[in-house]
């Protein structure tokens, strides 16, 4: 009796897993960016990394320039991949890169920056991950292009060459 319910259930579960893995296999490994346009940035108050100062979202994004909010963590391996792009974007004077350090230890985060250099003009500290939730982020890394208090573009996953060029073309 038990077998009669259990066996079909297990078979269906395994078929489901097979299906998922099969589809996953045929997907490219390149992260697909998701674009969200003209959504307002969330309002929040956040601690600045390596200091006790607190800032509000309005203070952070107040100037009339483009901002790039990058959610990162030292334990996140894809963050290492996208780091060179951020370093390159840093050279763009019309863009300011704000880092949101996600669920990280200060020591590890500092090591990460010392090792790979610091692309950020300002780093915010999100030790419990709540600010990232405010932004609707799914994980790390994630990047938001912001202008005039609005999210112009949202990138889920690490940046790649195409996305990098796209940002360069927007921020001229």
């Amino acid at each position, binding site marked *: 009796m038990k077998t009669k319910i259990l066996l079909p259930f297990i078979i269906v579960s395994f078929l489901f897993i097979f299906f998922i893995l099969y589809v*996953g296999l045929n997907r490219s490994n390149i992260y697909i960016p998701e674009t969200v346009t003209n959504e307002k940035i969330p309002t929040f108050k956040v601690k600045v990394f390596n200091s006790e100062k607190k800032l509000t979202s309005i203070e952070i994004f107040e100037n009339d320039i483009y901002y790039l909010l990058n959610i990162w963590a030292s334990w996140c391996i894809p963050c290492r991949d996208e780091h060179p792009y951020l370093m390159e974007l840093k050279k763009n004077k019309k863009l300011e890169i704000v880092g949101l350090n996600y669920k990280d230890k200060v020591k590890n985060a500092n090591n990460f920056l010392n090792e790979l250099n610091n692309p950020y003009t300002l780093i915010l500290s999100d030790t419990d991950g709540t600010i990232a939730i405010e932004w609707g982020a799914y994980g790390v890394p994630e990047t938001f292009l912001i202008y005039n208090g609005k999210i112009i573009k949202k990138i889920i996953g690490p940046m790649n060459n195409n996305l990098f060029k796209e940002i360069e073309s927007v921020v001229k």
Partner: protein
Amino acid sequence: MASLIGSYSLFFSLGFSVLILFFSFKNLKNTINFDNKLLSLTFLQLLFIILSFFGLIIAFINSDFSNSTVFNHSHTTKPLFYKISGTWGNHEGSLLLWLLVLTLFIFLFLISSKKQPKKYRVLTLLFQQIIIIGFLIFLIQTSNPFAQIYPVPSEGLGLNPILQDPALAIHPPILYLGYVGSSIIFSSVLAASSTNYISKEWAKHIKQWILISWIFLTLGILLGSIWAYYELGWGGFWFWDPVENVSLMPWLALTTLFHCVLVLEKKLLLTSWVVILSIATFTLSMSGTFLVRSGILNSVHTFANDPERGLYILIFLFTLIFLSLFVFFFFHKTDGQNNTSFFWLSKETSILINNWFMMYFLAVVLIGTIYPIFLDVLTSQKISVGPPFYHKLIIPFLIPFLLAMAIGPKLNWIKSNLQNKSHLLLLFAISLILSFLIIRILEISFLVNTILFTSAFYLFFITLRDFFIKGFKNLAQNIAHFGFSLLILSILFNNFLSTEVITNLKVGETYKSDELTINFEKIEKIKKQNFEAIIGKFNVKSDNELVDILKPELRIYNQPNIVTSEADIKTNLLSDKFMTMNLVQNQEYFNIRYQIKPFMIWIWFSVIIISFGGLFSFFKKKI
């Protein structure tokens, strides 16, 4: 020439597989005795796989670039040692190694199981042949190690420098003996289920095979971890990388399986556990191969991505899963065996409790590893699961796990009581006080840390006491559990006492802090056969006394052209001094990372103790 022989040998092996299948079926139907023809055929199959494997090794030694595997993964300037280890340092060659282990193990199984029932032996051979055929076709079809290139290139592309390392040269063979060794457990359990032979005798016999796989898997993981520690230069021993996770999952399943088999051998209980775990161990090993080879996961060490290969392994993997489900549901008899109720305070109950914990740890690792794939397919969201996830979910549950590990072996089978067990309380009190003091001194005042230290110390003291009180009784188990407590303690101390200095220095400069000074004395350049090295010389002083001279390296490999950073590590019993040096782009500065990692060697050492426990158990019965 060698490639040609190797290539034909593969086809011959496939031919032998067909013959073995044919004679197995015949043997199942007709005769009472095991047909010795099967043994000869298995031996011949093994011989041809060995021939094929040596063919590939010789092609590597001779730098025969008409062979595409050699062309892609070797170079004439490489030292002989790495030419040979390059044989299994790539996808095609490593699969050939898989096959070698598959055929070797079934041969060893057949010659060592002469006392077992005939039907069981033939069926084990049959199931193993299904796996062998699957892999042979996979190898020949999608990843032939003997594929030819014409015109013949004059030079190879070289082996990835981070793979040119002694630990990594022996890491794959050892790991595969564990991984693939579990195939024998899989075939055997299916055969035993089909013939209703799951019994105390079977448990006693399969236990040895579980131990062999387990020992090699443990050592294989250890070697990989040591390699990652000094070669990748991240200064840690475990990163929860998908590739590490896929080796940890079969290990967890295998460890649980071993404990279940002990119960089965003594009490004829937990038969379903044993069957499911035996199946799970090998399917997890296969899933690992799938996840790593198909490129479905992003990891620091993925092989070349190829969806076709992935699809083949995926289909094959699920064929095996459904085959085992079929055997389990329609042949496996549970009647009358599992109805014995467990008394709450007994050895088997404590083993059962820890089984569930192990399954929990396994589930955490499994979900952390494959959940990103599921989420991506179902919702197109990308996430990265990192250490915080694993730490949060695993660490708290280590506490009851450690306690059960300490108390469980003290209990009797069937029913136990806690009389004359006052020393258990005493040792617990000592552990608690000791942990409390340590937490105070280290100034980490978290409740969970105190309990964690307490439970680790508790297991440590109890096993330590048993060495003196019980002597040789249960020695194997005691060694392994002692090793585990030592491992947890080393990890804890390592985690809480590590210190680190990161700074940018140029030659001649000195970094000063309250505790130490680091003086960058000079750099020198050295030319070797396959790389050029820039070696820095650093004098580390503490209180104006010279503590260490460290010489981290930057290596510029010629083929392929890659720069790697070689950490210099000074190891002693108390701590590791670890230094890496990296180029800062377009500057004369070097980025220096100096770490003091206490008890690092104890982490490796305790894993060796754990596997030594397994080794001891393996030889115990035979003495």
